[in-house]
């Protein structure tokens, strides 16, 4: 599981978020942990509601093909893989607090052990600070390649890009594209 980014270990000598630590692993385990924050000019309740409907995640997460809700806390994630293939796992909500927090974790048999946490904090006139933290344990081989693609070479980049698209969708009602034609737009997907 991922630590709450805002909470510091007693040993920490500064107030910077844990994942920015230069030495050691932020979560205290072998997982790769990435975090990204974005401020969105919309109320926390609206952002929370959109995210909690996991099917919506595919609209702004580039490599997520679709997420199907299985029941109130479990959902099946279908993630794009090279050569038109997909990888799937079932995630379970592990913690939630209305309008503030959603945490989830892939079930034990997942090929790619991973977990995530998104927090929504009211930022007054600026809207809501959304902080997403993702942890995963990348395996070797084909699945490792899928994970590498999903999170790009620099894992933080994909999380940052996905959050930017979330912000665009919530603030403007659309996701910016520089495509000129429908064909170009489809090729970018």
């Amino acid at each position, binding site marked *: 599981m991922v630590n709450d980014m805002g909470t510091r270990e007693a040993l920490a000598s500064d107030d910077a978020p844990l994942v920015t630590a230069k030495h050691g692993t932020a979560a205290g385990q072998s997982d790769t942990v990435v975090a990204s924050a974005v401020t969105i*000019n919309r109320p926390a309740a609206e952002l929370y509601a959109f995210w909690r409907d996991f099917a919506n995640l595919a609209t702004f997460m580039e490599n997520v093909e679709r997420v199907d809700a299985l029941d109130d806390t479990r959902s099946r994630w279908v993630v794009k893989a090279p050569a038109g293939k997909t990888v799937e796992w079932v995630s379970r909500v592990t913690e939630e607090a209305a309008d503030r927090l959603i945490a989830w974790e892939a079930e034990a048999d997942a090929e790619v052990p991973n977990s995530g946490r998104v927090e929504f904090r009211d930022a007054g006139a600026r809207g809501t600070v959304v902080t997403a933290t993702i942890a995963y344990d990348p395996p070797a081989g084909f699945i490792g390649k899928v994970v590498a693609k999903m999170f790009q070479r620099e894992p933080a980049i994909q999380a*940052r890009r996905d959050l930017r698209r979330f912000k*665009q969708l919530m*603030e403007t009602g*659309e996701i910016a*594209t*520089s495509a000129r034609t*429908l064909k170009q737009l489809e090729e970018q997907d």
Partner: protein
Amino acid sequence: MRALAWHGKHDVRVDTVDDPEILNPRDAIIKVTSTAICGSDLHLYDGYIPTMMAGDILGHEFMGEVVETGPKSTLKKGQRVVVPFTMACGSCYHCGKHQYSACDNALPADNQDIAQELYGQPMSGLFGYSHMTGGYAGGQAEYVRVPFSDVGPIVIPDGIEDEKVLFLSDILPTGWMAAENAGIEPGDIVAVWGCGPVGLFAVQSAFLMGADRVIAIDHFPHRLELAKRFGAETINFEESATYEALMLMTGGIGPDAVIDAVGLEAHGFFVDNVIDQIKASTFLGTDRIHSIRQAILACRKGGRVSMPAVYGGFVDKFPLGAFMEKGLTLRTGQTHVQHYMPGLLNAIVEGKIDTTFLISHTLPLEEAPKGYQMFHDNQNEVTKVVLKPGLALAAE
């Protein structure tokens, strides 16, 4: 459609490409009636701007007729509009503060990485100006897809010809914001480096804001002549020593405000500039900055520095000591076009600002490559090239 595409340094061509389509709800498609080549397009032409790709359609100064609208566009078919070169969503924090060129959302998410690394935070998207600014197709074309068409484009009343309002897209608001950033107070002496369109509009704007005297600096006689027409005193830096002249013209005080409207391709055969050129050609430094350096040295103590000029990367030998010791203030940035458009349109309609004097050449879009070459080779006489997609090729 036909469109002017970049293929490499000093290689632009009019290609046939697919027409643009409505892709997002707030989009509109504009049929271009007039589009101009900007001085900053020459930075692309000369290969100074990174992240260009062969086939990129150029042009960020354009206007035209609305021919198609997305379901959330507020424009109507048949309206004539001028389109700001900076795209802005209108709903993010920065748009709320009218800092439109800092819009969070107009740049596609993947294109934001480069600017995030280079500048710390990405800026807004621009039409036709490299992939770092979004990779959006530009306006030197028959048709353009205009995102966020409910925020940017300004509707032009009937009866006002293109030539009077086309420059609302970039250079007029840029010149105006340059003067505003100079914090001009009544009685000020303002010095402007560069008498290109932005510099000339800054001269006009500075007087409208109450400057007592404006001193314009360039080496092209024709451009200095235009500055003089608006009431500026002039310094030709090839004939006179600029710093010494400014000290004598300001009683040893220096100008109260200085405006650098030159940017990263500063001309002139000065020792420090030559070193910059050597460094640029050996990739040791990106930007040649003689004008901003000289402006800072000349500026009076406690004065204001305004920098509308385009800089892209890193510079060295920036006179940080003079800047600090004299307690100067620097204001700069890409233009918040949407903020200035309505007021400047009024000023044009009321006859307070003239923009048509700038246009030296009008060509069909098909002759755009010739326009680039002319503009590049003869900046004395070629002050502004306007391209018209609807204009027939001249009979040979």
